[in-house]
C-alpha cells in the first residue's frame, strides 16, 4: 500500500477527556459519592435490620394507600415470595438503588424536559444527547463511573441515572408540547404569565404523560441496576452475576424470576398511579 489512512484516535480522545474530567472533578464526585453511598447503605441496612414481615406489611399499607387493595395484596405476596427464596436482602438492595436512582433521574430529568418543551433551541441540544444516552450499550457507562464514584452502589446509581433518565425527559417535553392549543390560547387570553401557564395548565395536563415516562424510567432503572452488579452494586443483579460466574443455571433463573417479580410490582403501582393521578380522569 502506498499510503494508509490513519486511524482516528477516538478511544484516546475519550480517554483524554475522561482523564481531564477525573482530574478536575473527581474530588467533588468522590465526596458526593461518600455522602450518597452512606445514605444508600444506611437505608438498606435499616430496612434489612427490620423483621421482613414488618417491612412487607408496611410496604403493603403504603401501596394500598397509593393504589388498590388488590395491588397491595398482590405486592405483599410477591415480597413474601422473595423472602421465602432467601433473596430478601438482595431485593431490598436493588429496590433502594432503583428508587434512589429514579428520584435523581426525575429531579434532573423533569426540569430538563420542561426546558426542552419551552425552548426549541434547548431541545435541539438535548434531543441528540438523549438519542446517544439510549443507544449506547448500557454497561459502557459503568467504566467512567468508577474513577468518579468508586466501585459500588454510587457508580451503579450514576450509570442508572444516565441510562434511565431519557424517557422522563422525552415524555415531560412531549406532555407539555401536547397541551391542546386552545387551552394554551385560553390561558394567554386571560393574561397568564409564562410560569402561570406552565404550572396551572401545561404541567397538570401533562401529568399522565409524565407518569408514563416515570414508569419507563423505573423499569429501565431496574434493568440497569441488575447490570450494575458487574461493578459491585450487589442486589438481585449480584445474585445473577454470581450464578453466571459459577455456571449455576438454577440459581441464575431463581434470581432472574425474583427480578421479574419486583419489576411487575413496580410496574403495576406506577401504572395505576399514572392513570389515576388526575382526578377528572377517574371513572364516573
Amino acid at each position, binding site marked *: 500500500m502506498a499510503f494508509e489512512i490513519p486511524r482516528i484516535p477516538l478511544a484516546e480522545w475519550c480517554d483524554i477527556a475522561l482523564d481531564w474530567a477525573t482530574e478536575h472533578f473527581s474530588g467533588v464526585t468522590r465526596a458526593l459519592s461518600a455522602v450518597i453511598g452512606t445514605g444508600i447503605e444506611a437505608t438498606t441496612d435499616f430496612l434489612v435490620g427490620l423483621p421482613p414481615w414488618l417491612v412487607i406489611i408496611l410496604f403493603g399499607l403504603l401501596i394500598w394507600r397509593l393504589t388498590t387493595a388488590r395491588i397491595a395484596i398482590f405486592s405483599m405476596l410477591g415480597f413474601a415470595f422473595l423472602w421465602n427464596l432467601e433473596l430478601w436482602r438482595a431485593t431490598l438492595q436493588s429496590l433502594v438503588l432503583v428508587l434512589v436512582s429514579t428520584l435523581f433521574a426525575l429531579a434532573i430529568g423533569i426540569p430538563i424536559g420542561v426546558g426542552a418543551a419551552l425552548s426549541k433551541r434547548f431541545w435541539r441540544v438535548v434531543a441528540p444527547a438523549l438519542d446517544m444516552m439510549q443507544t449506547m450499550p448500557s454497561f459502557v457507562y459503568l467504566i467512567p463511573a468508577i474513577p468518579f464514584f468508586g466501585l459500588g452502589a454510587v457508580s451503579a446509581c450514576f450509570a442508572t441515572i444516565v441510562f434511565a433518565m431519557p424517557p422522563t425527559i422525552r415524555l415531560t417535553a412531549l406532555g407539555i408540547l401536547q397541551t391542546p392549543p386552545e387551552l394554551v390560547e385560553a390561558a394567554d387570553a386571560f393574561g397568564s404569565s409564562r410560569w402561570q401557564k406552565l404550572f*396551572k395548565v401545561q404541567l397538570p395536563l401533562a401529568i399522565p404523560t409524565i407518569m408514563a415516562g416515570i414508569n419507563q424510567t423505573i423499569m429501565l432503572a431496574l434493568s440497569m441496576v441488575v447490570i450494575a452488579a458487574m461493578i459491585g452494586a450487589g442486589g438481585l443483579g449480584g445474585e445473577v452475576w454470581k450464578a453466571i460466574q459459577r455456571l449455576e443455571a438454577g440459581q441464575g433463573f431463581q434470581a432472574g424470576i425474583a427480578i421479574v417479580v419486583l419489576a411487575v410490582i413496580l410496574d403495576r403501582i406506577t401504572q395505576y398511579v399514572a392513570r389515576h393521578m388526575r382526578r377528572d380522569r377517574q371513572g364516573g
Partner: protein
Amino acid sequence: MNAKRPRVQVRGLTKIFGDEAGAALPLLKAGQSRAEVQKATGAVIGLQDVSFDVDEGEILVVMGLSGSGKSTCLRCINRLIEPTSGSVLVDDTDVTALNERELMEFRRTRFGMVFQQFALFPHRTILRNVEYGLEVQGVAPDLRRDRALTAIETVGLKGWDQHYPSQLSGGMQQRAGLARALALDPDVLLMDEAFSALDPLIRRDMQQELVALQRRLKKTIVFVSHDLDEAIALGGRIVLMKDGRVVQQGTAADFLANPADDYVRRFVEHIDVLGVVTAGDAMRQPAAVKPWQSTAAEALAILTQSGEPVVTVVCHEGRFQGTVDAETLKQAGDTELRLLLSDREACVPGTATLNDAVAKLASGRGEIAVIGPDRELKGVIANADLVAALARRRSETTH
C-alpha cells in the same frame, strides 16, 4: 368627554401571515390586490384595513364565512394574534402599543374571552375554571371564590361548581366558559363562534340568554359568527367580512335594503325576512282613521271609500284605541265609535319584526296598527301590505 364615544375602536387593522410580511405591507398599501401580493411575496393576507367601532352595551357581530378573517380579527383585538399594522383602542388605551407586561395586565382585567370549543381546563372543576382569570390576577382565594360563584349563578350553573367539565353537556360547558369570562367583570367580551359547537335548540336558548344578560350587564361584546341567523338573533350591528376585508357594516335590515354589493346580496338571500324587517319598515299611511267621538255612519262612509278592511280609531291625542269593521258599523247607525271598539290589541310597536305582525294579523281582521312608544298611531299594515313587503324584499335580493 364625549359620552357617545365607542368603547372599542378598531382602526385599519391589517394582518399578513408569513415571513414576508415586511415586504408585503408596502405593496398592499400601494393598492395591490390580495392575490397579487401573495404571488409577489408569498405572504398570506389575513386582514386588510379593517375598521369598526363597538359601543358600550352593544353586541357587535363580526360575520363571515370560514377564511374571511373574522377570527383573526377578534384575536388581533387582544393580540393573541399580533396585527401587522393598524391599532385597537379600548377607551383611551392603544392595545397595540402595550409592551408584553402591560398587555398581560390588560388582558387580566379588561378582556374576557369565550371560545368555540369552550377551552375549559379539563383538570379543574367548574369553580376552579371560573376562578382562573382571578387566580392569575392574584385575587385572594375567598374573594375570587365568591366572585366565581356569583358568575356561575349568573349563567345558571348554580350547584355545578364542583363538577369537572367532562361531566357537563356542551351547552353547560359553554355557560361555564361564559362564566369564566364574566367573573373578571371585563369591559370587553370577545366571543369566538361561542355557540357554533352547540345543538341548534341549545344555540337558540343561549343566544336569547346572552341578549337578556347583555341587557342587564351592558358589556361591550364582539361576537364572531358565521351564521347570519345568529347575527340577527343577537340583534345588533353586523360587520360582514370577506377575504380579510369589511364588505359592509350595519343592521341586517340595512343589508337587505341597501346591499353594498352582490356578495352581500347573496349573503342575505336566504335570510328570514320576517325576522329582520320591522313593522315600521313595512307600514303605510292608513286611509281610514277616525277619532273615537265620530259616528258609525261617518266612519262607514270613509271606510267604503278607502277600501280598508277596518276603521282605525284614535283618541284626540292621536293614540291608537282599536278598530271597528264594516259589519259592526252598518248595524250601528249613529253610535259613537268609542262604544263600538274592539281589538284594542290589534297593534304592534314599530320596532317589532314582521314575525310579530304576522301573528297579530292572523288573529285579527286583516289589518293592524303600528304604534310608537306612547301608543301613538304611526301607520297600518294590512294583509296585502305584508305580501307586498315580502315581494319587494324578494325582488331586491334576487335581482
